[in-house]
């Protein structure tokens, strides 16, 4: 997973790291949600990108109502793609009525490392403890 070719390698296509959080409406059924997510997964891979990680937070409470809904399905996609893919990807988000909110962030190298460690579950003992100490 996630081959760390940081900058330009021999290949001409430069892939950058991105992460998108998508908030779907709570009116979708499990099945519809799966369909929607697989559509975006497909979009990434069709455009020479690679999906690094996918996370489904399930039905989560929103901090404030969006479109008069107080919950939403959160899906996190971490992927590597060409930079000009993002505009296409976000256009698809905007056209999709099932999506209430989205946020795409390009990841710097610290973020990629952080996400990797988070996935490996290193944080529940290591960094989290440090953070809590920092709070004291």
């Amino acid at each position, binding site marked *: 997973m996630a081959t760390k070719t940081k900058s330009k390698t021999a290949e001409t296509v430069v892939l950058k790291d991105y992460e998108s959080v998508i908030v779907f409406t709570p009116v979708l059924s499990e099945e519809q949600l799966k369909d929607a997510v697989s559509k975006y997964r497909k979009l990434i891979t069709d455009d020479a990108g690679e999906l690094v990680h996918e996370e489904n937070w399930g039905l989560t409470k929103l*901090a404030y109502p969006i479109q008069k809904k107080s919950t*939403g399905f959160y899906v996190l996609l971490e992927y590597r793609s060409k930079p000009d893919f993002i505009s296409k990807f976000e256009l698809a988000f905007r056209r999709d009525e099932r999506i209430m909110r989205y*946020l795409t*962030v390009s990841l710097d190298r610290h*973020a990629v*490392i952080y996400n990797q460690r988070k996935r490996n579950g290193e944080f529940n003992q290591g960094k989290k403890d440090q953070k809590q100490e*920092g709070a004291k």
Partner: protein
Amino acid sequence: MKKKANASSPAMVFNTMPEAPQKKKFCRFKKNGIKYLDYKDANFLLKFVNDQGKVLPRRLTGTSLKYQRKVSQAIKRARHIAVLPFTGDSLK
């Protein structure tokens, strides 16, 4: 001017890190070597907002400028995806 706010100042009311009178503040990111702030981690970001949901100033949290910028960026991202509220009466 690295003067500590004295106990009588109203600023102390909002301080998230209650400390001993003359203890020096420190940047928790520099101290713990945290390089990246996750905007999805609401519990962590809550340490940097007051109970109305406003970003706390550096003067209270002790965060260095470099990381304060990241904190505010992360909080704004979190607000956009409804992980943190824009306003609230009692977050804590």
